[in-house]
């Protein structure tokens, strides 16, 4: 049922002109989401390290041409609320933070991206929207930090949350 829905959505998204789209998941599906077909050559892979909101490092392999949002979805990385608008520059939930060196390698930011990035919580000078960053071999090994999406006023007394 979910696969049929995923296929339907992929077809609909293609019709809407988003050609490099993968199906967004909210993290509730038990199985992997559908991805665009990529040749599985190991030398063609790009490694990306994500630092999640708990400070844990998650390293994954992705393909050149994937956006960082694609990677998060394809690898089922469980970042709460990430990519709500499914990569259409209508939100700021795929906000990622890089160090200076990596940020410079990521290329120019369009006005359209900046406009949405401006709404992101915890905006920094080295912030980008993950859905707009296309991986290339030269970005192999980059580290992307997933920032908090809201001011955390919660105090965890016993460490559990």
């Amino acid at each position, binding site marked *: *049922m*979910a696969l049929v*829905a995923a296929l339907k*959505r992929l077809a609909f998204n293609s019709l809407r002109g988003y050609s490099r789209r993968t199906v*967004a*998941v*909210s*993290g*509730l*599906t038990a199985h992997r989401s559908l991805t665009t077909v990529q040749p599985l050559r190991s030398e063609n892979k790009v490694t990306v390290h994500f630092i999640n909101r708990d400070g844990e490092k998650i390293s994954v392999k992705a393909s050149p041409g994937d956006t960082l949002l694609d990677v998060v979805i394809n690898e089922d990385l469980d970042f*709460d*609320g990430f990519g*709500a*608008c*499914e990569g*259409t*520059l*209508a*939100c*700021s*939930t795929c906000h990622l933070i890089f160090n200076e060196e990596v940020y410079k390698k990521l290329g120019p930011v369009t*006005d*359209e991206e*900046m*406009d*949405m990035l*401006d*709404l992101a*919580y915890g*905006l920094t000078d080295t912030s980008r929207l993950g859905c707009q960053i296309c991986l290339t071999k030269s970005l192999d090994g980059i580290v992307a930090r997933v920032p908090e*999406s*809201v001011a955390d*006023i*919660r105090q965890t007394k016993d460490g*559990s*949350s």
Partner: protein
Amino acid sequence: MLFFKGIVVRGKALLSTCPKVCVVGGGPAGFYTAQHLIKARQDVQVDVYERLPVPFGLVRFGVAPDHPEVKNVINTFTQTAKHSRCSFYGNVNVGKDVSVAELLRSYHAVVLSYGAEGNRSVGVPGEHLSGVYSAKDFVGWYNGLPSCRELDPDLSCDTAVVLGQGNVALDVARILLSPLDILKKTDITQPALDALAASRVRSVWIVGRRGPMQVACTIKELREMVTLPGTRPEMTPSDFEGVKDALKDLPRPRKRLTELMVKTALERPGEKEQERWNSASRVWGFRFFRSPVEVLPDAEGKKVAAVRLAVNRLEGSGEGAQAVRSGDVEDVPCGLVISSIGYKSLPIDAAVPFDSRRAIVPNSMGRVQQVLGLYCSGWLKTGPTGVIATTMNNSFDTARSLMEDMDSGKLDVSAEKPGSLRIRALLEEKGVEPVVFSDWEKIDSLEVRRGEACGKPREKLLSVEEMLAVARS
């Protein structure tokens, strides 16, 4: 943690001690709360109750038709609704068909996420004249909200005044002035499209009490207005005195927004843009430092003929700047006034504490202090501002509070609760038949099919009766 006992049918625990949560309101807040709860505990069952036969709240009825990408979140909500531990019950009016007390008896926890269905009144004489509408109703009208079906706004005038300078105000201005070619490919309702095709509105003034550096809208929406085909912007240059100098100290988001306004108001446009402005048949602009003090009627005394605006000056700067009356007034002739000064939550059940001044349910991190087991999320919790992502975070926060309370034992989830079994029985006694998610999918399919026939993403059903008829078919 909690062992799964009792009868399990198709993944849903019917008679068991699994925690059961009820969410009131099937919009973004409700669905994001449900999503977080279901993910956080493998034994939680969440039932979402919604007054209309159709889900998704303001994503369906508030987001502008020409912003379809913003509605992509519906895919996430759909996944949640179809999860084995989630059930959607539309056509159920909480407060009327079933009380919050009944829900608290049947569930371990109840989360109120019913948003803000009222609007702030401007509070000036003439506000109730014909031709004056709240943005909530105008937006509801072009988005197919059943209760706004009969609005029939009069668009035969030349000038419209929008009160307020937030994103909703800009949405209204943009829909009033957008070329038909653009609108006819969206999910705007057919009656609204017909009305806009016949519209004679050519000028829209977006009025705010304070200055350019206090506008509540964001840059994406402003950019859309500045580049809107067939239109040209017209601002008052003197409104921007001192603004350029203040730019350098502003944080980037406010700076870029203000820069765009300054550029539009003060700089000569490029050649192509100048051409576009010259051939534009429609005009819009911000009118700053103006507060409405009266809506003036025409000779017959029934319809709006003008808005009387008091002229303000600013005391202080930045977010905290205050508008102070200068003593001057200005009358702006117009035939349409749309007040976009904020939505407002309403109390739906006497058993629920309600802060009438702030128009929210008083809470601490989503917990309604005076009532054990009662929570709130979304605009009902924080007030009616923020985009969908704001609501998402807000809802996740409430879900976290609820989880904490379950884990700590503050909420006793070891006691069996009947959940939807009992509520559905109560509803049946009253002759209320809920619309389940697969029923909504029939409505959804029909709307999409009807839309295909005319090049639109969907052609919405416009009445509750039609929706129910399709749901029951």
